[in-house]
């Protein structure tokens, strides 16, 4: 079984500080990491491989430095890595990204399952996974929390919904987007780290995958950023300090005043 995992390199926002004057993020020294949701995708792919055999190919679209994310994926069990990188892909929105990645996946060919994280922590759209599936003309199941069973013809998964979960069956090939509940990603083994060091990361350009550059990058993006601004911060409200009993009473009074209690 050939499994393709789509990952994205993102800034590690967990440790990002805000500049109190400008209200913007301080970017100095912010490291790049694999999108946290993609860690679950990598793990899910590796587990399928371990269970029924096959190969895991990690793929990312990004600048040349995104190669480090691919090496990390290899350290965690991916067998091969493909970097889809070209100036022509720059400034892509979700439609153009879906097009570039799906073109690369078609170029790689012979895939059974494509796995993505539910969304990227920087863009937070969750649109690229289903978009890739549409362009590959294969079904997708989003918000997968468990792979119930899998063989070379079909897969059964639990799809997370607001009120519980649905059990869905799909023929293969299929694209899945996975949520955090699906697994606990492993820590890279020493052997994995060695493999990551030695791995040859293949780079694919727009020409390599025969992508139509009218459909990539900015050219292929129907959405455009009109403006960017810092939202007005909520200003501080009333402060209460002192004896617990008194401040609790003051709060309850406020709450009953607005009809909450």
């Amino acid at each position, binding site marked *: 079984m050939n499994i393709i995992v789509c990952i994205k390199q993102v800034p590690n926002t967990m440790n990002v500080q805000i500049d109190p004057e400008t209200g913007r993020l301080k970017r100095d020294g912010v490291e790049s990491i694999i999108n946290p949701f993609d860690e679950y995708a990598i793990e899910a792919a590796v587990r399928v491989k371990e269970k029924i055999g096959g190969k895991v190919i990690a793929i990312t679209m990004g600048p040349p430095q995104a190669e480090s994310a691919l090496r990390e994926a290899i350290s965690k069990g991916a067998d091969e890595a493909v970097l889809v990188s070209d100036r022509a892909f720059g400034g892509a929105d979700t439609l153009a990204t879906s097009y570039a990645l799906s073109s690369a996946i078609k170029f790689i060919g012979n895939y059974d399952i494509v796995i993505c994280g539910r969304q990227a922590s920087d863009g937070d759209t969750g649109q690229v996974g289903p978009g890739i599936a549409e362009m590959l003309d294969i079904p997708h199941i989003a*918000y997968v929390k468990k792979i119930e069973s899998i063989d070379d013809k079909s897969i059964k998964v639990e799809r997370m919904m607001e*009120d519980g979960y649905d059990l869905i069956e799909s023929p293969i090939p299929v694209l899945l987007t996975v949520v955090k509940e699906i697994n606990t990603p492993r820590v890279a083994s020493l052997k994995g780290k060695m493999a990551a060091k030695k791995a040859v990361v293949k780079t694919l350009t727009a020409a390599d995958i025969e992508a139509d550059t009218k459909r990539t990058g900015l050219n292929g993006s129907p959405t455009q950023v009109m403006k960017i601004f810092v939202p007005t911060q909520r200003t501080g409200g009333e402060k209460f300090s002192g004896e617990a009993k008194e401040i609790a009473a003051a709060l309850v009074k406020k709450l009953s005043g607005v009809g909450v*209690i």
Partner: protein
Amino acid sequence: MANSIKVLTDKCMGCKVCEDVCPFGAISMVERQEHPKKLKLAVIDLNKCAYCGSCVQSCKFNAIELKKESLQSGVDKSLYKGVWVYAEQRRCEISGVVYELLNEGKRLAEKLGTALSAVLVGSNIKSKAQELIDRGADKVYVCDDSIFAEFQDDPYTSVLTQLIEKEKPEIVLMGATNMGCSFASRVATRIRTGLTADCVSLEVDPKTRNLQQTRPAFGGNIMATILTPEHRPQMATVRHKVFKEAKIEQGRKGEIIEYKVNVQTLLNRTKFLSSIKDTSAVVNLDAANIIIAAGRGLGKREGFKLIEELADLLGAAIGASRAAVDSEWIPYSHQIGQTGKTVAPKVYIACGISGQIQHMIGMSSSDIIIAINKDASCPMMQSATYALEGDIYEIIPCIIREIKSLKGG
């Protein structure tokens, strides 16, 4: 190329302002040995640049030149009219977000001088159409067939795409629910139009008829307004509780249009097998009016017993910060913030949550924010409507006693 941006080397003073302003981290400063004053030069990484123009506005020396050219999509925009709301339902229950979208959709439609329509896809669903009219829809397209009894991406995508291609709305709004997020992107991709996720505000320009879609960018600390200038329809998803619900106007007049579904033309590759209600998902954070959330400051798993006691008393749902979830004090389904849920309750009580931006973006549109924390200087206490400084384990029992005596008396 559609857009181009460049730094005018003779004007750039190497002041670094643009580097700090760039939301995408696309600008870096490089040394210029050849410069007579050894001034640095701003360099734009085109792989990261989104051509948003923030740097252009910030540059005092007019050293950055941005040329935006509108893309030709080949779409005749004048053919597209009307605002649509996708009326999501699960087992014949209309999702709450739909009423909110109808309210906002109505406002946009009036501004554009056009009609508001709802699209209802389901099985034995026709009786729900009047509900949508009562909430402001002028027209309701009903796609009723047993194939839509349970949500599956293929048939839902097919039917909505068919309907959009036939009727040509200019705007399509959908709820950013698991269902909406799952197939909205498929629809937009099939039509090859733009889709903007998780908008927090919408506006229209009656001249260009462009929908201005504002959403948090890069973790929510900055906002971006996004346009789909040359493609139609303009599609956007919006989370539950971002807009206010449309009021009910009983017996309002509207048109119900039954769309004849030809099942043969619908894709249907997946199979729905069963559905399991998750009792632990009673954590319906989206629908809660009051949420009590706890974070690292709680100190221990057992602390949630105290939180539960207060929650029961207030009829509140329980939320948590990522720190509390990662410490395995409470399941992930309770997590609020960037990697969890977005909520906007009437009252949000943050207990021992310092307020990292990742958490704040998940709850900052709550009406009233109450913070209880030992550290009065943390962001949550600074931005709270009511900030209570002190120990959770002292203050919450007092609040519980106070409420009990109020209710009892």
